[in-house]
């Protein structure tokens, strides 16, 4: 058998990492993501899979891919940088919530309680990464003769069902953000963006587990985090 096929796929390894983490109590898990910028080709598959997975309406995005052009023609190159929620250890969005509707879970994920959130959007202003967006209630079939059924399908964020009705019920009127696909994680699945990445530029796992793929990568000298100077301690690392 060729050597390549004998090696276990990193996706399979990471699935194992997630399953191992789930056996631990929730407070002992530290979910972390590593994105290898050298492998990212800017295909936006992660963005699209995230929109599909979480049934995101127009104007709400959890994981855009930022593109920067470097140099001048003809010496030009482009850099692609996916930007999920950083799931900061010191999240600036949490203390500003006037009703305590957002908090940091024990496993490191910053959660929003859609039924508590009053939609003041103060947390959006506080996030240094623009990772939070507001659900204004737009639909893709706005001003069309018929509303398509897929618009009303529920999202399963935080392991609950959030159907999209006309009544303006949550999550409409709420601030929304990337959850590291918590609803998938709890079922032993990797986040949608990680499974979908065509270049396998995305790594995910429990950074408190020394055997996890992410733990090795985080220790690499080229692992960086965004806006370190702010002291937010993101759980998302980039390999540059």
């Amino acid at each position: 058998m060729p050597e390549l096929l004998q090696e276990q796929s990193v996706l399979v390894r990471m699935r194992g990492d997630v399953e191992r983490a789930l056996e631990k109590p929730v407070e002992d898990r530290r979910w972390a993501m590593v994105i290898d910028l050298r492998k990212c080709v800017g295909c936006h598959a992660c963005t699209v899979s995230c929109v599909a997975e979480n049934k995101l309406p127009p104007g709400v995005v959890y994981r855009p891919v930022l593109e920067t052009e470097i140099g001048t023609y003809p010496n030009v190159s482009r850099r692609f940088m996916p930007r999920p929620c950083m799931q900061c250890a010191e999240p600036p969005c949490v203390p500003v919530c006037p009703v305590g509707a957002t908090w940091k879970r024990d496993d490191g994920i910053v959660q929003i309680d859609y039924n508590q959130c009053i939609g003041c959007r103060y947390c959006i202003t506080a996030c240094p990464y623009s990772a939070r967006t507001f659900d204004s209630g737009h639909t893709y079939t706005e001003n069309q003769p018929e509303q398509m059924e897929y618009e009303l399908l529920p999202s399963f964020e935080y392991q609950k069902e959030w159907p999209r009705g006309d009544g303006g019920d949550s999550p409409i009127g709420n601030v929304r953000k990337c959850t590291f696909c918590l609803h998938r994680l709890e079922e032993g699945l990797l986040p949608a963006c990680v499974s979908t990445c065509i270049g396998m530029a995305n790594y995910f796992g429990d950074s408190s587990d020394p055997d996890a793929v992410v733990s090795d990568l985080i220790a690499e000298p080229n692992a960086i985090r965004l806006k370190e100077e702010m002291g937010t301690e993101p759980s998302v690392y980039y390999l540059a």
Partner: protein
Amino acid sequence: MTSIMRRLAWPLVSIGFLVGLVGLYQRATDGHDMANYGSYIPWGLWVAGYIYLIGLSAGAFLLSTLVYVFRVKRLQPIGKMALLTALVTLFAAIILVWVDLGHPLRAWRLMFRTNFSSMMGWMAWLYTSYFVLLMTEFWFAMRADMVACREDPGLRGRLCGFLTFGHNDDSAEAVERDHRILQILGSIGVPLAIAFHGGVGALFGVIGARPFWHGGLTPIVFLVGALASGGALLTFLTAVWGPGAGTPEHRRTVALLGRMVLGLLAFDLLLEWAEFSTGLFSSVPALTDSIEEVLFGRYWWAFWIVHIFIGTAIPIALLLLRKSSVTAVAVATGLIAATFLTVRLNIVLPGLSVEELEGLQSAFTGPGLTFEYLPSIGEWLVFFWAVSFAGLLFLLGTKLLPITSERKVA
């Protein structure tokens, strides 16, 4: 000229109130679809309008304490008007920020599920305390005059009679007791007003992610802005609706208020200069982007023409050169009060309109995923409705309540 303003006020606020209802209807039926703020510019005209109106309220209230706490004789006749102004602008401010919420019906959580690590959580409590204090103070300031106007014919007499709630003692002792209570309430009000408006400034000042807002000067800028704009509004209202219009007494009161506003405006300019100059000459460019947006960006005219020329240069010239003319002071202070909205817009929006990460704007498109913002017509309509509502309450107040009449103590 001031009589023309008086005559124009009723039709203006009535039209604003009625037309503005269209915007409120849109907000009620379409939700936030009708607004142009969104994810990258999450706060727009309504939040700017709210800090504008709440600033007017805080400013007018703090000036009322000159009457009730510090007992400045010359300003005695405008005490009740200052309280009425503070009250109606508070109403409008709260309504505006209430419709801005994604889930307005959950607003009660601000009071009963308060997170006190959030400045906004503190606001809920401070505003409620301020509202209760303001209502109580207003009642004590008016009580003796309402006792006197019970005998007036028509609705006014009946309203006065009802609002005294049976406390009809108008002896010199009772009036003196009212004054003592007012002094106590006002004394509580001074730190409270400083706390809630400084708190609004702190709400912005604590946001480390927005260099334009972040800093210890922000609450002070808010407070001085409140005093300048609220003082200007009160002076304008006094000049036009004030007690004893046309008398030398009235002219002297207006002139004194005009001088105070001039000083406050000058102080506000100094703070503005301090913020902008240190920002522009800052050794790191993060702050410079927002300030350059204000000064030389697409809406440069809002700063230079509306704020600096119409709202500062012309009023200063009028207040310096025509300081004894009631009309000139009315025009000057009216311009300051009206154009101060651009100062508030220029705090809220430039802080948000700078990309936090390069390439964000073009990374993904959709409604609200943009760093460009102009209020929608619906947003303007709701804003004008709120302002007209405050205006209507003010006009009704001056008509039905003894705001401008001075009761002669027996």
